[in-house]
């Protein structure tokens, strides 16, 4: 497996994030970044420094929210999640290193629901390709809002599911 060249990948992720922030008119002062343990935490740290976001970096360990307890039991070495900010009405950038089945995303969203009501999410990720080589996929950079069921013919753009996954 070839290892990725980190600085250009981080540059590409930053560029994507800047685009998403501009496209969706996100408030940088309230934008918060959350890294998912373990691999996502160090990538989030690097991105957080480069973006110079004023809100401190958060970390999330989704071990207690996984859906495979019945089969696997408790995962080893779960860390405490640490969100040093109020999540209410904030846009959050979630960062992880690998996407496979989407279970981590689901578990992370479930955990974040317990911290309060967010405005929406960005989700830049590293992507583990079928050939097991790492590359960053622009396709995975998406802003996802959790929207209420559509009751009318339209609803505000802010609440639309904007993923182009």
């Amino acid at each position: 497996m070839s290892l990725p060249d980190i600085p250009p990948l981080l540059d590409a992720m930053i560029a994507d994030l800047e685009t998403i922030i501009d496209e969706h008119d996100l408030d940088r002062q309230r934008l918060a970044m959350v890294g998912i343990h373990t691999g996502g935490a160090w990538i989030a740290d690097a991105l957080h420094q480069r973006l110079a976001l004023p809100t401190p970096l958060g970390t999330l360990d989704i071990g207690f929210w996984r859906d495979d307890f019945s089969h696997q039991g408790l995962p080893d070495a779960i860390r405490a999640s640490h969100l040093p900010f109020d999540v209410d009405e904030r846009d959050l950038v979630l960062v992880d290193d690998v996407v496979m089945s989407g279970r981590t995303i689901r578990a992370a969203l479930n955990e974040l629901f317990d911290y309060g009501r967010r405005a929406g999410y960005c989700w830049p990720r590293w992507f583990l390709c079928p050939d097991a080589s790492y590359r960053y996929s622009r396709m995975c950079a998406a802003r996802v809002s959790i929207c209420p069921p559509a009751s009318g013919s339209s609803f505000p753009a802010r609440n639309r599911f904007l993923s182009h996954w």
Partner: protein
Amino acid sequence: MIDSASSAAARVQLTSDGRLRHFIDIEGLSRELLTEILDTADSFRGVQDAQVKKVPLLRGRTVANLFFENSTRTRATFELAAKRLSADVLNLDIKTSSTAKGETLLDTLNNLEAMQADAFVVRHPDSGAAHFIASQVTPNVAIINAGDGRHAHPTQAMLDMLTIRRHKGAFEHLKVAIIGDILHSRVARSQVLALNTLGAAEIRVVAPRTLLPVDVEDWRCRVFTQLEQGLQDADVVIALRLQKERMDGALLPSENEFYRHYGLTQESLAWAHPEAIVMHPGPINRGVEIESAVADGPRAVILDQVTNGIAVRMAVLSMAVSGQTRSRARQRAS
């Protein structure tokens, strides 16, 4: 003798790959496993920062609280711990249950097992009750010992260890003094075992001779009968409740006498390290083993112990149910 008791305790409590499946006694558990319990409990403390203080780990599981002896905070914190793990909780009041109608303990437990309970939290006045249930009656249900006779109260000891670690960091340099009714205290025995396993520098028990167990010399701790000597430069001071309900002999002249010689007061606390923390497993007898000014003072971490109790009980419940789950998965696979 100690080694064989220790390995017997380990055999009952651990799966073949060394994971927790029951939590009955500190004896037989390794430093690594105790540290894992503390680390997991620390992570559960983090959950309590969220608006929703609940995780879905034991969703769809059932935890039965079987209290054959009175308890307020232990029972409440076990119930809260199970609920915060999303388990369904069954509180069996033994006095009004079938056991009062003549059903044996075995039949009660077998019925609960047939109802697919996943864990039993057991408090019983007889030493060894939890061990008996785990080894002979319902080995496939996670048994958590919530106090058995004078034998053990391992979750209380672990919540005390968590409180010490969160306030003092590593155990290696700590002098810990445990004061009061050592004789009747299952808590003290479990605390000494846990502190030894976790590598505390010095463990002291301080009590009048009448309130020291006969085998205390085998506990791997220093024994003091004078409070001043026992408290000297201690980093952690644990006052125990005087268990009046278990006193079946003339062990003390009077409570006043006990307070005068062994009561933890502002005056006596001055013998300990200036930054010593004060702990008490509760319920507190104010003016008997501890002065109100100390119990409510800045060095007391007694209410912190209660909060840590929920986290520790969440940790052992989830770890033991997890161990049983893995064992069953392995049995199915083979």
